[in-house]
């Protein structure tokens, strides 16, 4: 990505730099495609994160269930969505958390975009 390219507010593109930073976290989230792995994570979160070699930053972000921290640690939203699924969160929950809004306010914002 060109250094001169303008920033997009509130947005970090998932490029090679982020893909390398987030590899362990994303690999763990990719494993959540399988129900047995989701169960194993819930049964022993520490052991599961350790098995995937999460960095300290990634482990803390997982512990906090904090989407902006997970993204900063290299998480990709497509894989993180599988983690969110374990927690029973949908994409409006994720949007509300990242924007600091209530879920109802976030949904109202989406509705308003259609008018």
């Amino acid at each position: 990505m060109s250094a001169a390219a303008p920033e997009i507010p509130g947005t970090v593109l998932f490029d090679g730099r982020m893909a390398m930073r987030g590899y362990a976290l994303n690999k763990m989230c990719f494993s959540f495609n399988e129900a047995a792995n989701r169960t194993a994570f819930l049964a022993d979160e520490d052991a599961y994160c350790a098995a995937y070699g999460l960095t300290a930053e990634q482990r803390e972000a997982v512990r906090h269930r904090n989407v902006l921290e997970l993204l900063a640690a290299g998480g990709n939203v497509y894989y993180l969505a599988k983690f969110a699924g374990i927690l029973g969160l949908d994409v409006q929950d994720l949007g509300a958390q990242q924007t600091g809004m209530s879920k109802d306010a976030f949904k109202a914002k989406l509705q308003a975009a259609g008018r």
Partner: protein
Amino acid sequence: MATIVGAVTTSHVPSIGGAIARHQEESDYWKPFFDGFDAIHAWLREAKPDVAVVIYNDHGLNFFLDKMPTFAVGAAGEYRNADEGWGIPVLPPFPGDPALSWHIIETLVGREFDPVTCQELLVDHAFTLPMKLLFPDAAAWPVRSVPVCINTVQHPLPSAARCYRLGQTIGDAIRAWPGDARVLVVGTGGLSHQLDGKRAGHINKEFDLKFMESLTEDPEWATRFTNRELIAEVGTQGIELLMWLAARGTLGPRARRVHSNYHIPISNTAGGTMLLAA
């Protein structure tokens, strides 16, 4: 030679699968989106496609960051759906058309596109839900299929211009395929939405409508933007409009709009559907 009967482009958010499973197509929330398919169903009954070439983006069901192809083409006799981690129902397997797959692959490589070829490929909601939207009542899938996957997970993504040319080349391949197959092209994704970051919830109705209009009036309009410029307009996942551009590219320079629908929101997304015919 084979004929391209038309191209359908549509959004593909996972919650469409939940809405279908819970029979919510007529609910106040979902009806404005699902109603956009009634005219397409009527058209499909006349068009009678034999094969669907489905251009979509995988969301981490089949491909991981260990090996991330920019373009991938399925070359299997069957494509299976699988658990994506959040509980939408797994749909029955899709019959493939390996002969058409290899014909498309040979044409693409001959024209200096170099896709990954996949004799095993799990297809995720971006492939399966549009097929369910097109053929909601079919006891068995009424078409064979060829999946074409474009990377939108990890940047750099292929440019809009490159995706349009990919579609043009796939269109040329189909039109040169011996036999009399009737081929439907499907492009899935978009329209504007952003799931990640402080700008989550970004939607751009004005740009989406301009983009939809451009597909008949000036199909190469969107190819003049860089991906970064497109993402600034339509969001990090709105860039899935690349699938629409590739699908449009298959039709040749002129296409007419048979039907279109646009509704905000479905989930976090501006839901768009178009049916274009050459």
